[in-house]
């Protein structure tokens, strides 16, 4: 991998098979903006157990295989730090998907960010923070942008 890889977990009350999200990700991949490494569909039972869901009909039969291998704990895996998500620096899929919910988990490599990240590293820069703006702040930013035009 050369670009930063994001794990995007999109939750659904019930899994929708519309394919809209996949279509958008595919468009971005075709444009070279991102590389969709894999997508996995999961459901979390009311008892808290996570189960993988079959790939949608017509999709690559290997869809989800890489993500499953990567996100799940192997029997001889000593990578697991501890259950419960009490350390804010670690997370697991079970922290993200609520019981009774379903989610699409995408592993996305951000090709567009690769030169930026390399430039940051070359210049000795360090990312101090990164976040997404909340809708209210986004509206404020829109208004300010309009006013300053």
């Amino acid at each position, binding site marked *: 991998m050369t670009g930063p890889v994001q*794990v995007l977990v999109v939750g659904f009350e019930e899994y929708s098979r519309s394919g809209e999200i996949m279509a958008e990700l595919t468009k971005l991949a075709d444009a070279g903006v991102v590389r969709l490494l894999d997508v996995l569909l999961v459901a979390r039972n009311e008892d808290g157990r*996570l189960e993988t869901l079959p790939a949608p009909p017509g999709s690559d039969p290997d869809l989800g295989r890489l993500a*499953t291998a990567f996100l799940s704990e192997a029997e001889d895996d000593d990578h697991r730090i501890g259950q419960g998500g009490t350390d804010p620096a*670690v997370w697991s899929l079970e922290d993200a998907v609520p019981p009774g919910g379903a989610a699409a988990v995408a592993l996305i490599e951000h090709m567009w960010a690769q030169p930026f990240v390399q430039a940051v590293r070359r210049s000795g820069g360090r990312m101090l*923070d*990164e976040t997404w703006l909340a809708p209210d702040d986004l509206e404020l930013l829109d208004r300010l942008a309009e006013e300053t035009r």
Partner: protein
Amino acid sequence: MLLVPKQLLRVGMTGDVPYYGGRLTPAQAYAASHPRPRPAAPAPRTRADQQRAALRHLLDTGVITPEEHERFVARVAP
């Protein structure tokens, strides 16, 4: 297929663990703004206190009516 997820390190885009400059991390800020309920009061000491507390719990959870609660509390030996 059952999936047992492993814990992954949360990092920023550059691969560094996010540094919050001495401020609370988002998770800590969330925890601070969503305080957990206070721990339950210590268990009553005497048997009568325990019985009253148990009856209070039954009343609070709707198992017994206020009238029944009053009647049963009156039976508790001081």
